[in-house]
Structures are given as structure tokens and as C-alpha cells.
């Protein structure tokens, strides 16, 4: 009986103390928000989760001197490390562009390879500053996960890859097939919808890592490998004999892929968004890595605005005046990034298609930089 009373008293004291501490905790936290220096110290001490980020990310990034970028574990052309751990790809270029805009140096990026399953948690917890990992923009992700999509850097759609020897002509011939894919992706749902809508039987084998999907498909565990068409093109070069496989013509979904940032830091969202638009606008205006030097002395007002000679977009974003010039100087415009990483002259051999600039009839449209 005495023990019980002691327990109840302790419980009451505990809850009361917890309530008080927590109250103080919130006060401390709001003070902290004003004290950017302390806050960034916290963030740099490795794992301290940046819970509240009202305009904090840009200060953090400047303080620590690099952008922490969440990427895939290896999708050639999108985000892929070479033997000496240099990352390349169009997703990587988005992070490099942000680093060039904020820090003036596109090499100041650190990469965190993430599985599809880990990616949003890493962003929510403040482990990374940008998630640029061929991530599809969907309503659920935008609303329920506490993240914001900063734009689209590749318009994709889900497709199917099969062995040529199967003699399959199109996706409607796939009834009864075993399908390999990545766990925790929109792909998993799209393929379920597709087969259900067409009343076809199928068996879905979902792996956590892309390399395991490729290995299992290559071994013949599945008849079909399904994911975004761009990733199919990229992963095909990892197969033992890429020429024995083909991508079916059907595209069964819309997959707009783009960089993602945390909710609640609008300034950082703007920086990432406009870094991407800068790459699109540069292509539209014909500003490239090679001619940016001469463009600095152009007499076209919109180009002068772009390179920071006129207007104060840079200042409003909290960046230097030459932020967009730095992006083009060090990373190049969107078209250059595309050609270098996934274009027809690379192993991945993707054509521009809908990803052409809007002037060429594509969907890549940068908002006016005025």
C-alpha cells in the first residue's frame, strides 16, 4: 500500500516536472531561433535535429560551409558516385547549383546516399538540407510529410523493361508476370493500379535497394522490371547483357521528379527553387558555361539582371549579387547538365522529349527572373 502511494506521488511529481520543463523547453527553443549562431552550432554537432527552421537552413549552410545533399545510392546519370567518390548526375547538379548560389563554390557539397525508404525521414530530421533523389512530387508527400517540393528537374513516367526473348509487344501482354521493383516508391502503387485496372494477375517482388532489384531481375526472378523510365535507361547499363532487354513503349504514370526541402523554411525553399529556375532561364537565354564571361558585359537588360549587374534579386534571396552567374560558371545551364549526364552522348542515351526548354516545346519553364 505504501509503495502504491509512493508510486502515485512520484508519478504526479514526474508529470508536473515534465510539464514545467517542457514549457521552459519551448521558451528556450524560441529564444534559440533568434540566436542563429547557437542554433547552427547545435546543427553542426552532427545529429542535432533542426526541429524548427524558420530561415535557419541558409544560416546553417553558410556557417558549416557546405550543403548536405540527400541522393540515391547510385542511379547513373541522376546521382552516381565514381570510383573516387565524385558524385555526378542531374540530381547532383541541383545540389551543386545551390552550393554555388549560397557559398559561391559548387564543390562544397556533401552527399548522403539514401534508400527510398530513408529519404524523407532524413530530410525531416534535419540530417540533410536538400533531398535531390529522383523523388516524385505527389499530393500525399507534399501535404502529410512536412516537406515542400522546390520544382521539377526531370519529367518522368513509369515504364516497364522486359527481355526481348519474351516476345512481349506492350504492357497489355504482361498478364501473369512476375514484376521486380523498388520498395517504398510510387512505382509500387502505380503498378498495382495498372494491373488492377486492366484485370491482370501479377506477382510483385519489392526490394529495398535498387542494386538488388537489378540483380534479381538479371537472374530471372522476374519477367518485368518496373520503375521510372529514366531509371530503367540508367539501370539497364548495369545488366549483364543490356542489349537483350528493351523498355516497353507504355508510360503508366506521371512522375515529376524534383528537389525537396523541409517545411517551414520559406527562404531556403526560395533559394533552392530559384537555383533551379536559374539553370532553366540560362538555357532559355542561351547563357552557357563557356559564354558566361562575355555575357557579363552584355547590354541586354534581362541578361544583366541574370548575372547580377542590375536589380537586387540576389539580395532579396539573401545571396550575393552574382549567385546565378556562379551557378552557370560552375555547373552550367539545365541543357548542359542534361547533355553531360543523361543525354544522347552518354551511356544512358535519353532524349530531351518533354524535358526540353519551353521554347523548344518542352515543359522546362523557368519563372521570370525579374
Amino acid at each position, binding site marked *: 500500500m505504501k509503495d502504491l502511494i*509512493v*508510486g502515485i*506521488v*512520484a*508519478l504526479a*511529481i*514526474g*508529470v508536473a*516536472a*515534465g*510539464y514545467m*520543463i*517542457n514549457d521552459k*523547453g*519551448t521558451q528556450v527553443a524560441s529564444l534559440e531561433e533568434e540566436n542563429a549562431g547557437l542554433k547552427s552550432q547545435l546543427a553542426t554537432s552532427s545529429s542535432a535535429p533542426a*526541429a*524548427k527552421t524558420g530561415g535557419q537552413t541558409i544560416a546553417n549552410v553558410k556557417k558549416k560551409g557546405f550543403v548536405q545533399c540527400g541522393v540515391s545510392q547510385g542511379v547513373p546519370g541522376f546521382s552516381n558516385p565514381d570510383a573516387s567518390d565524385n558524385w555526378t548526375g542531374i540530381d547532383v547538379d541541383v545540389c551543386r547549383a545551390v552550393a554555388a548560389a549560397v557559398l559561391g563554390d559548387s564543390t562544397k557539397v556533401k552527399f548522403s546516399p539514401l534508400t*527510398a*525508404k530513408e529519404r*524523407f*525521414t532524413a530530410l*525531416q530530421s534535419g540530417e540533410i538540407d536538400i533531398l535531390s533523389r529522383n523523388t516524385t512530387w505527389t499530393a*500525399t*508527400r507534399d*501535404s*502529410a*510529410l*512536412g516537406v515542400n517540393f522546390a520544382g521539377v528537374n526531370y519529367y518522368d513516367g513509369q515504364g516497364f523493361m522486359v527481355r526481348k526473348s*519474351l516476345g512481349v509487344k506492350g504492357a497489355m501482354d*504482361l*498478364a*501473369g508476370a*512476375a514484376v521486380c521493383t523498388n*520498395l*517504398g*516508391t510510387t512505382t*509500387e*502503387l502505380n503498378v*498495382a*493500379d495498372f494491373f*488492377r485496372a486492366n484485370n491482370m*494477375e*501479377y*506477382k*510483385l*517482388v*519489392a*526490394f*529495398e*535497394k535498387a542494386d*538488388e532489384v537489378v*540483380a*534479381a531481375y538479371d*537472374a*530471372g*526472378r522476374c*519477367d518485368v522490371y518496373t520503375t521510372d523510365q529514366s531509371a530503367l535507361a540508367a539501370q539497364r547499363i548495369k545488366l549483364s547483357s543490356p542489349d537483350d532487354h528493351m523498355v516497353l513503349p507504355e508510360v503508366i504514370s506521371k512522375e515529376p521528379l524534383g528537389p525537396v526541402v*523541409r*517545411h*517551414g523554411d520559406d527562404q531556403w525553399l526560395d533559394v533552392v527553387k530559384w537555383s533551379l529556375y536559374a539553370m532553366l532561364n540560362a538555357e532559355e537565354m542561351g547563357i552557357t558555361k563557356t559564354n558566361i564571361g562575355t555575357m557579363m558585359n552584355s547590354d541586354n537588360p534581362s541578361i544583366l539582371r541574370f548575372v547580377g549587374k542590375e536589380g537586387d534579386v540576389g539580395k532579396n534571396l539573401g545571396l550575393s549579387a552574382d549567385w546565378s552567374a556562379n551557378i552557370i560558371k560552375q555547373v552550367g545551364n539545365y541543357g548542359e547538365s542534361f547533355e553531360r549526364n543523361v543525354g544522347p552522348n552518354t551511356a544512358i542515351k535519353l532524349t530531351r522529349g518533354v524535358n526540353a526548354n519551353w521554347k523548344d516545346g518542352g515543359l522546362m519553364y523557368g519563372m521570370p527572373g525579374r
Partner: protein
Amino acid sequence: MAEEVIQSQKPSKPLVWNDPTYRALFFQVLVLGGVVSLGYVLISNTLTNLERQGIASGFGFLKGTAGFSILMTLIDYSEEDSYFWAFIVSLLNTLLVAGIGIFFATILGFFIGVCRLSSNWMLSKIAAVYIETLRNIPLLLQIFFWYFGVLRGLPSPGNSINVFDTYFLNIRGLYSPSPIFEDGFSLILWALITGFVATFFISRWARKRQQETGQQFPTFLSSISLVIGLPLIASVVAGFPLSWEYPVLRGFNFTGGFVVIPELVALSLALSLYTASFIAEIVRAGILAISRGQTEASYALGLQAWPTLRLVVIPQALRVIIPPLTNQYLNLTKNSSLAAAIAYPDLVLVFAGTILMQTGQAVEIIAITMGVYLAISLMISAFMNWYNKKMALVES
């Protein structure tokens, strides 16, 4: 003088903060209060921050429509079912692979442990090599070895290994006929149950009689004939109300029949072979813990090697074996979560993978997953503790 001091101190009661009882109480209250407040701060902080970042929270998501398919289901499941149902399906898959793993690991572990102690040089060396190899290679590598190494060598569905047009083995799994129950099948089921119940009572009666009179009864033969014979007679009476659905190659894959997927095979193989190597060592230690005198006494009474092992050594060794064996069962169950690496749809892959991804409710889902593993582990421990108590030496 000294006596005086003691006398003068004794009657005065110590002050409250010097009284050991109150002191102890005070610190207990302080510690418990601290733990509770820490928990409170953690939980309310998490909730506040989730809300501030606009991340959905709560358990309502379990009612949502799953929308994805699961490779292997023990119960009916379709894309229209809820996340909760998908959770149950994946939980059953985890329990299945843990059950299979524990069953085979125990049998194999006991066998190898006994072999390790065999006087046959060859046998004991083979067992030693088995143990030293398998327990020293990381489990994940072994899973990959079986899945990507061994099972990869199986043929494609078109070139399946065909056993009498009934069983088909290929890289997509082992296909076997599945039974179709027709009217009157319940009669066979009842006959089977009757057989088991009768066997139970007969063996009890036979043991009692043997203890009282020393007469033996052919329990094994009678049980076999009861368990097999009764259903057989019942099926003749009911006119064989059972037919088989055979797997047929249609399009890409076999349809119909019953399939054991390679992911399940690879995972069960790796788990049981790996854990068996640890169980073998536990069994060896248990047997060696029984003094040599027990065996010698048994031989002196005229018992042969096998009955000596079965009736004298192992019952005593079990007391040493059970507690560490429980640890291995718990390890195996928790290790089954490596299933995610080879696409076996277990709790971690489906619930803490796909569902976590689709709903984004990491905190709730990881909490549920941890709770489930904790509950399974506690249940295994409870059962093993009960068994341990039953096997314990009763000193009279």
C-alpha cells in the same frame, strides 16, 4: 564513558532527513519522478515538433486503403484491404519464417551438437567444421549467398525441373499441387482429430502401465495406425472427397497449385543453418555438463548408447541447454527482419517499409514495429521459462 554516549544517543529519534527509510523513499520518488518526466518531455516534444513541421501523426492511417500487393500472403489479402490488414499479413509472414527457422534450427542444432561429441572422428570433425564456418560468417552474407548465389542457378519457368508433372522447381519457386476440399471432407478431419486424441490417451495409459507393471506397449505403431488409418477409413467411407489442383505453366508463370517462394526458402535456410551452429555448441556444452558417471551408470545398468543419451543424458542436459537456447530463439526471430534485403514480405519490409513510405508516419510505425518484436520475444521467453520450470530438477 563509551557506554554512556551510546545510551544517551539511543532514545533520540533521528531527524527526518537522516532517517534511512525516508531517505530511501525520497530518492526512489526522485528517480521515478525523473524517469516519468523525461518520458513526458520526450513524447510531448515529439508531438509538438511533428505538428509544427506539419507531419501527420496519430494511428488513423491504419484504416486507410493499402493499394499495394504483397508477394506472399497466408490469409486473403487484396489491394483494397486496409493498412491494418496488410500489417497482419506481414506479421504472419514474420511468424511463419521465425517458426520454420526455430523448428529446423533446433533439430539440426541438436543433431550437429551430438555429432560433435561423437566418437567417430570423421563425424565430429565435419560437425566442428560446420559450426566454425557458419557461425563466423555474417548472417546477411549467408542470406545473400542462398538467394543470389545458390537459388539463382535454378532454371527459368519454361525449363522448370519437372517431377512427374506434379512438382515444378524454377527460379520463381517450388510449385506443388494444392488440395481442393469437397463435401464430406470434414469427416476426414474429425477422424484425424480422433486419431490424435486417442494417441494421446493411449500413450499416457501405456506409460503408466509400464511404470507400474514394467510391461511395454507398442505405442509408436498404434499411434501411427490411428493417425493414418482412421482418416484413411473415413475417406473411403466419404468417397474420397479430395482432389488436387495441379500447377500449370500459363504465359510467363505457373498458375494454380501451391507455391513456396525462393525468398522464403533462402531466408529459412540461412536462418536455420546459422542459428543451428550456435545451438549445436549449446547442446554440446549441455551434454558435457553432465558428469561422465551418469553415462557409466547407465551403461552399467545395461542401457545402450542411444537410450542412455535419450533417457539419461539429454533430460539432465536440457536444464543447462534451455536458458541459452531461449536466447538463440530470440535472436533468430529478430534476425528474421533481415528479410527486407531479399524481398521476403515480412513485418519490416511491408509495414516498416512500404507502409511507412506511403503514410510517412515513421514515429508511429517504428513504435508499433518495436512493440510487436518485443511482444513476440516476450512470448517466446515466457514459453521457454515455463518449459524450463517444467524440466527443472525437482528435489524431493
